[in-house]
């Protein structure tokens, strides 16, 4: 398994997680999120700024070219 370790995800409660080490700040997820949940921060990485609005549509995860964003799929 690549990406964040189980430990890094432990205790994380927001439905969207950004693995900053792989995010290239392209902004595709930000542009096409239907609920405006995401923003690019001052370090040019994706930040989850309005997690409460997320509808878990997973479009950000599907369109992230860098496997840097994962969404709770409720399973």
């Amino acid at each position, binding site marked *: *398994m*690549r*990406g964040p370790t189980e430990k890094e*995800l432990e205790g*994380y*409660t927001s*439905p969207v*997680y950004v693995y900053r*080490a*792989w995010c*290239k*700040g*392209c*902004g*595709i997820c930000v*542009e*096409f999120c239907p609920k405006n949940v995401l923003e690019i921060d001052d370090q040019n990485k994706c930040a989850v700024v309005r997690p409460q609005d997320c509808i878990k549509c*997973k*479009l950000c*995860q*599907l*369109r*992230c*070219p*860098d*496997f*840097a964003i*994962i*969404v*709770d*799929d*409720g*399973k």
Partner: protein
Amino acid sequence: MAFDRTAHKYLRKNFKMPTIWCSGCGIGIILGSIFKALEDLNMTGDNTVFVGGIGCSSRIPFYVDFDALHTTHGRPIAFATGVKFAKPDLNVVVVAGDGDTAAIGGNHFIHACRRNIDITLIVINNKIYGMTGGQYSPTTKSGEKTTTSPYGHIERSFDISKLAAAAGATYVARSSVYHVTHLDKIIKEAFAHKGMSVVEIMSPCWTTHGRRNRFKTPVEMYKWLKDNMIPLNAWEKLPEDKRAGKIPYGVFVNKKDIPEYCEAYYEHIIKPNLNKKRRDFSEDIEAMKIKLEIKAKEGWHV
């Protein structure tokens, strides 16, 4: 919290991350779709092999934790044909760029389609030679600026899907990295299809193409795909004059009644000869050896 970690599971373990692709490049999105199809169809390293050529697109096999061939520019389909022919039980997936497929490898491409050999070809169409810095490719549109067409391209472009269909591929579909759910669907269908399947995926290369053609960011290129790609059923109803500059997407060909090449070879060439007595060549070989020895004695270089 339960996250879908499919991609993280299939990514090659001992390979440097993040990927080599530029920020906003579409190739990673296609890799993500491939991972999902592998998972859904139970394709594993034991039954699947990836083949790439040379180019940014052809880097995909590096990131899938399966056996893979990194071949020469233009030749991945030729190598894949050999793999499939030697081991017909394997799923063989080729990932190649528009240059790889339609320029240097154009003949391998059309003849694999004509034979209907059971290979899945994923063509990543960024309309440019990305890896070498942005020379025009056979899919560059008329008028577009590239390093080798600084005044705007004067040639017309190939339509990869039409070419595949005309050459005889039995599954042909087009999608884009914006239309991700559609992309997931056609990659899965192409993997499952028996026979030559070609999936053409429109994928932005901002670094060497968009930047020179008035796109301010990679995201602008994704918006362009959203606004200018039209589902096939809507495209068919569109009057000719409204089609200019637009690209149809969907499944163009899906035929199940054409014989697959390896199966036809088995049926018509291997099977009839299975129980045939082979000619015994041992006497001929002995006779040849004696002849060569005589010649050697006479001072011939043999």
